């Protein structure tokens, strides 16, 4: 007997809390999800309250350059005399903003285009799918580089808009195929028969059941935004005066940090990018497991006692 895929139950507006409740419960039971959530929360706290942990101004070049780690400077100082630890903490904010804003924008677009394409069908679907596939295939990174090249560099706003406007295609594809598989489900038929408008059907019948897929899409988009933004800033196409992990890496690389005895300057921001990325990746993976129970780690089976 084949394993049923994505167990779906028809939702009505009154059951949304049930869906969220289930998600929360499932998350707390899964180790990967817990690890990812903890990491993410940690970074969120740092992004919102950086001043509590690192009161120094990160861009102030007031210290002795090139210092190693010490009690005063947990991670040492840069070649310009800035405190690395402060920079790291303050840089969290920008990365979090990019992750959530660009990830959110990409997900919103993915939902809009993917679900509409599937629901509208016909020529509209054909055109939207073609556009999705084309954008999916064109490598985003070089394209963003090209755009940034003409603008000299890409500030925060540009980054968010461009990454969001180009990163929706994968999610759109997933959502479209999920919606297609739902088109024939009975509860949708009953909504149609009741005469509900298309928009209502899309918002209140289809969307709640796709919650887990949408969340997974968001996590993937956020991950991709963090990594791509870091990469762009690293090669110098971000705003070099901003405080972010990517720009730290840029300046570190420019000053040969690794060879000149300031390895932490290059290693620390990289670790942060990796950890934030890992948080999203873990949550994403955990979500796969939650929505498809067959993927969960198989427990060791004990010989159960016969209940008689």
């Amino acid at each position: 007997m084949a394993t049923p895929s994505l167990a779906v139950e028809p939702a009505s507006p009154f059951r949304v809390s049930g869906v969220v409740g289930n998600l929360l419960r499932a998350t707390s039971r899964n180790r990967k999800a817990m690890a990812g959530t903890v990491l993410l929360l940690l970074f969120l706290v740092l992004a919102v309250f950086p001043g509590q942990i690192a009161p120094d101004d990160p861009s102030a070049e007031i210290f002795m350059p090139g210092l190693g780690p010490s009690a005063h400077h947990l991670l040492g100082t840069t070649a310009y005399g800035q405190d690395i630890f402060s920079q790291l903490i303050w840089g969290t904010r920008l990365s979090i903003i990019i992750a959530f804003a660009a990830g959110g924008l990409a997900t919103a677009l993915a939902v809009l285009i993917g679900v509409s394409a599937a629901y509208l069908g016909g020529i509209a679907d054909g055109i939207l799918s073609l556009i999705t596939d084309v954008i999916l295939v064109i490598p985003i990174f070089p394209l963003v580089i090209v755009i940034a090249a003409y603008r000299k560099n890409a500030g925060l706003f540009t980054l968010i808009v461009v990454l969001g406007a180009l990163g929706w295609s994968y999610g759109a594809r997933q959502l479209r195929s999920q919606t297609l598989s739902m088109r024939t489900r009975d509860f949708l038929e009953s909504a149609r028969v009741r005469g509900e408008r298309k928009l209502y059907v899309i918002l209140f019948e289809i969307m709640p059941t796709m919650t887990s897929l949408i969340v997974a899409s968001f996590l993937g988009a956020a991950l991709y935004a963090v990594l791509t933004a870091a990469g762009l800033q690293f090669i110098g196409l971000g705003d070099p005066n901003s405080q972010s992990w990517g720009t730290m890496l840029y300046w570190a690389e420019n000053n040969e940090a690794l060879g000149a005895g300031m390895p932490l300057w290059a290693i620390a921001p990289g670790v942060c990018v990796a950890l934030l990325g890992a948080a999203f990746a873990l949550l994403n993976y955990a979500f796969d497991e939650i929505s498809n129970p067959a993927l969960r780690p198989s427990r060791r089976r004990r010989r159960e006692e016969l209940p008689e």
Partner: protein
Amino acid sequence: MRFVVRRIGFFVVTLWAAMTTNFLIPRLMPGNAAIAMMSRYRGRLNPNSLHAIEIAFGVNNHQSLLSAYFTYLGNIARGRFGVSLTFFPDAVMHDVLQALPWTLALVGVTTILAFALGTLVGLVSAWRRGGMLDSVLPPIFVITSAFPYFWLALLSIWLFSIKLGWLPTSGGYNVTDTISWSWTFVGDALEHSILPAVTILVTSIGGWILTMRNNMISVLAEDYVRMARAKGLSPWRVMWTYAGRNAILPNLTGFAMSLGFVVSGAILVEYVFNYPGVGWMFLQSVENQDYALMQGLFFMIIIAVLTAILAADAATAILDPRTRDVR
């Protein structure tokens, strides 16, 4: 056959879309940066080449947008991207073709290797659910797949080149060597490619392992696998031909989508290692505002990606008879 034709059609449409975007971007950006670039060409280039570049970037354009567009497309079709500023007076195409083999060797080989190895490991780890491979690897690879390529590159340079001195820090080869097919050169090139290759391999293999493992798990629950067991086929046969061959199909389709990451990773890795491939040259051109070269390289990147996708599609058509009969 239909399938192949459709895919080639898609190839052409995507290529067209990419180059059209390339045409439009400089025109849409505020403050035409190309104008500044043009002044660097003045006096050094013959009028024909100058004109071609003007058309490509929308400078001093006395033509209508539409006719400029068609001339531009025509030029591209003939491989005429103008002259590079970075490597003046080389034709852009010439430089691009020089960088290409380096990237093909490094990125092409490692990607195929990562795909093959990753798929294999994923297959075996799913087959032995709950075994050592399965419990240990997936969480590790979830994390490594989130590592930024360039950071791992930096780390490995620091560890293996600077600290341990085992491998060279950068370049594709020793600058004192001459490029030839001699053993010294080839050996040297290989030595220089070890770190970049390992970086790419380690970062990208995680994704393949995970997706193949998940696919395999779904497939193993399918009736035809149970049926194969019922028929008493050898476990080897069941794992390979019944489960494996079906599980790999979504991976092949996913290959196309992952190429975006591969490309960005390749660009960054080449940058960090100063490895003379397409990615490195691409970033050089951006730094120098050598837009003509940049466009040529962008074009090459798109072609490479689309070719790889076509190859994956062909593999799917061979392995999955259902695709051959679709519409």
